[in-house]
């Protein structure tokens, strides 16, 4: 496996090349639809669209630096049962990792899917992207992508990408059946596409692409991207740890939280059908609140904000893929991803686990060995 293919660049445009590539896929008999980020006709915004009619692929824009939501959940919904036909889905690497976590929990089914992934150049927050999209014309995605790939500043109009993207150390789609390589490839010579699986290989060889080989600059280009992100990540973790190394500081960090639970709704790996915080398990008796107030003099309302976050950290930090949608969703600008990443890096490490790495790896809290962690008992 690991075959390499090449698609000629259409009119010198990455976007047009990608659209043509997707169209060839959709034209294949057995592919029913493609899920791909598209430009909306009613507003300059990007949303995933389920496209059945190839003419709509003229709106496809998988390189826009916009990440309105993590689509792993959408793919999970689309694969709940057989839909009748094969579906191709274009996802970001962090969406694929989240989907892999859902597959492990039997909440996603990859059988009738073809996962198409691009090297990820990162994205802006929803709020920032909305402003950018309103100010720029339709060439923005294309220009921005070329600029970033050529090593230029990722900032636009003084705004940078989200902290999640700037600290993401897994920007290539290792889980994809079809991997479109942007880092370290000479786009002028064509788009380099790698088969990531048997399924991908079969598909690509039916698409009348030129065969190609591994680009020599690829590894060092990817390493270079990761090195920058890694150093960003280390700085971010040091900062957030320093800001939250006591409960008093954590309380300050989360002071603006109003328990709206948007962060949990936006999180692709918060997988419980019914979250414990949506049940009445912690719906305390009225006298309990008064007792707390009596004992402490005063309590901040609503209660259970910090409790909610610590519980979510315990429940799902081992599955956190670092996508940053929690921060994106918070109406009060709490840096939720920063906190979760600072903990998830630790909790995944102790179980020698990496969320989304391998569908065969069992989630650490659903498995155990008889002889382990004996030093913590006693």
């Amino acid at each position, binding site marked *: 496996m690991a075959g390499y293919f090449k698609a000629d660049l259409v009119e010198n445009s990455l976007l047009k090349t990608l659209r043509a590539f997707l169209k060839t896929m959709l034209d294949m008999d057995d592919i029913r639809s493609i899920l791909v980020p598209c430009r909306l006709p009613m507003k300059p915004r990007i949303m995933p669209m389920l496209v059945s009619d190839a003419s709509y692929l003229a709106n496809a824009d998988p390189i826009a630096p916009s990440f309105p939501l993590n689509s792993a959940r959408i793919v999970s919904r689309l694969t709940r049962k057989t839909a009748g036909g094969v579906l191709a889905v274009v996802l970001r690497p962090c969406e694929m990792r989240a989907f892999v976590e859902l597959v492990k929990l039997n909440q996603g089914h990859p059988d009738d899917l073809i996962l198409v992934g691009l090297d990820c150049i990162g994205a802006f927050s929803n709020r920032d992207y909305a402003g950018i999209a309103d100010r720029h014309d339709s060439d923005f995605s294309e220009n921005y992508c070329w600029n970033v790939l050529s090593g230029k500043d990722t900032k636009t109009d003084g705004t940078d990408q989200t902290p999640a993207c700037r600290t993401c150390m897994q920007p290539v789609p290792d889980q994809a059946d079809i991997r479109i390589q942007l880092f370290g490839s000479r786009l002028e010579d064509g788009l380099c596409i790698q088969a990531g699986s048997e399924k991908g290989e079969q598909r690509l060889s039916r698409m009348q692409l030129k065969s190609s080989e591994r680009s020599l600059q690829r590894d060092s280009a990817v390493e270079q991207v990761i090195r920058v992100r890694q150093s960003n990540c280390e700085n971010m973790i040091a900062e957030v*740890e320093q800001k*939250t*190394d*006591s*409960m*008093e*500081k*954590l*309380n300050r960090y989360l002071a603006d939280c109003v328990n709206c639970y948007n962060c949990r709704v936006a999180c692709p790996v918060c997988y419980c059908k019914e979250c*414990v915080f949506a049940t009445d398990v*912690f719906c305390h008796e009225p006298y309990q609140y008064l007792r*707390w107030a009596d004992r*402490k*003099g*005063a*309590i*901040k309302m609503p*209660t*259970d*904000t*910090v*409790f909610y976050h*610590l*519980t979510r*950290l*315990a*429940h799902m*930090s*081992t599955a956190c893929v670092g996508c940053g949608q929690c921060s994106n969703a918070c109406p009060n600008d709490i840096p939720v991803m920063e906190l979760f990443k*600072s*903990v998830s890096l*630790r*909790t995944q490490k*102790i*179980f020698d686990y990496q969320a989304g790495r391998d569908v065969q790896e069992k989630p*650490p*809290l659903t498995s*155990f*060995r*008889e002889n*382990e*962690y004996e030093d*913590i*008992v*006693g």
Partner: protein
Amino acid sequence: MDAFEPSLIAFVCNWCTYTAADLAGTSRLYYPPNVRLIRVMCTGMVDPQYVIKAFLEGADGVLVSGCHPGDCHYINGNYKARRRIRLLKEILPRFGFDERRLRLTWIGASDGIEFSHIITELVEELKGLGPVQTQNSMVI
């Protein structure tokens, strides 16, 4: 000022540690009154959220105690509990909790003496550590 009396929440499984506690009682063994026992069917049902909740509401220490490996009445609940405690021992210290405030032990049904021992020792240790940082917090 009165001497500091720590509060200890102990989640104990019905089949082993609770029975041991009962035995300690009927054998008139001494253990400090600082402990509140919460009987659960198995340590495997102690979700991390209950441990966290106990700490946030001002418990100075939390003990989770069940059957020895191989003795769990639900076969592997205690192994799952061990992973969860390992997890919490990674998360809670990150926010300034002393790791010694959270203990996991296996105390078999006939170990009344062991039970009284561990509770006594843990309460002494908590006295040394002083009140937990959430004690007077207005945030729960």
